[in-house]
């Protein structure tokens, strides 16, 4: 007699269901950690992107905390390298004419006020996050054109507590609110991102 029972299959139908779930979720996942590019390798790429990208100024070198790039199709790519200063990112986006609220949620923290809004547009109706991305990116692609006058876009980023390179942000929740949005004052606790 073995101390472990005979292996068994997943319950009927679950194998296919889980496979479909995993395959459709792959695009939401943060990219695999990558080796940091050497400066010499990075420089040409930065030069090409400079016209379209706005990044938090670098005072002492290193990667910027975040970068925002406008794409030719009007979408915006956000890359977060360090989970600090969401206000600056938010101001950057607002400076580009996009009414967007940005919050970073570290592990073990949640927004004190839930729900933050009462009139969220369904993701299918106003897909603020572009999925799957239409451009090659290691960041998140959003489509600000989904935000109509009087509406507010909300981006919540789940921040890894011990991030590996390229994995600062674990997940994004992006929705458009057709009404007021409460600020996210961080308090201790676990809760899923977003209101829905």
């Amino acid at each position, binding site marked *: *007699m*073995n*101390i*472990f*029972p*005979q*292996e*068994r*299959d*997943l*319950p009927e139908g*679950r*194998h296919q*269901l*889980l*496979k479909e*779930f*995993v*395959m459709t*979720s*792959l695009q*939401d*996942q*943060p*990219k*695999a*950690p*990558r080796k940091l590019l050497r400066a010499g390798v990075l420089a040409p790429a930065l030069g090409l992107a400079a016209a379209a990208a706005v990044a938090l100024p670098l005072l002492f070198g290193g990667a910027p905390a975040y970068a925002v790039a406008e794409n030719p199709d009007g979408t915006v790519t956000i890359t977060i390298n360090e989970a600090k200063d969401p206000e600056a990112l938010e101001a950057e986006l607002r400076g580009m004419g996009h009414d967007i609220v940005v919050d970073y949620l570290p*592990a073990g923290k949640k927004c004190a006020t839930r729900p933050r809004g009462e009139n969220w547009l369904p993701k299918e109706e106003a897909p603020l996050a572009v999925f799957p991305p239409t451009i090659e990116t290691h960041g998140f692609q959003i489509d600000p054109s989904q935000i109509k006058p009087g509406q507010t876009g909300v981006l919540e980023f*789940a921040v*890894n*507590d011990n991030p590996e390179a390229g*994995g600062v942000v*674990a*997940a*994004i*929740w992006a929705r458009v609110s057709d009404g007021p949005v409460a600020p996210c004052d961080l308090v201790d606790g*676990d809760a*899923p*991102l*977003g209101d829905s």
Partner: protein
Amino acid sequence: MDVMRTRIRDGDQRAFEELFDQYARSVYNHAWRLTGDWSVAEDVVSLTFLEAWRSRERLTPDGGSLRPWLLGVATHVTRNLRRTRRRHEDVMARMPRADAVPDFADELVGQLADQERLAEVREAIGRLRAHEQDVLLLCAGAGLDYAEAAEALGIPIGTVRSRLSRARKKLELALSRRQIDGDRGTAVRPVKESTR
């Protein structure tokens, strides 16, 4: 160079589907052995494949079966379940929930002489140190050999051997004490080691 490994590393989603079909069952059963909960084991299946996709670039191009790699990811996911769930929080919110599944005790009623004996085995395994449990469950439970378990856990083969030896001795001692204390009805076969 292994073709399947290369396809996975290159982000071939069709290959990843094949990988799921081939090894979801192994991951499911390994996760159950680690947790004793079939519903949690389903979560671990999804999270393991999401994590595997995320870290696919770390996969070495040369090597044998991808099963040890996946079971290693599953072990890590299970040991860090809370953190892993948070990393995939947005995805987890959409996870299809499992129907109620009988737990391991119900499952084994017909296979072990009695539930009390099973509980003793689980308890004895639970008293092992986590890294001893990992090696024991990979080798004796999932049937990996020393080299595969070493690959799964990213440790030297000698460490696998010594941890497994310690785990076996502790387990046998714990169970033999139980028998001396009164239960003489069922002998538990020593953990079987497989070697390549």
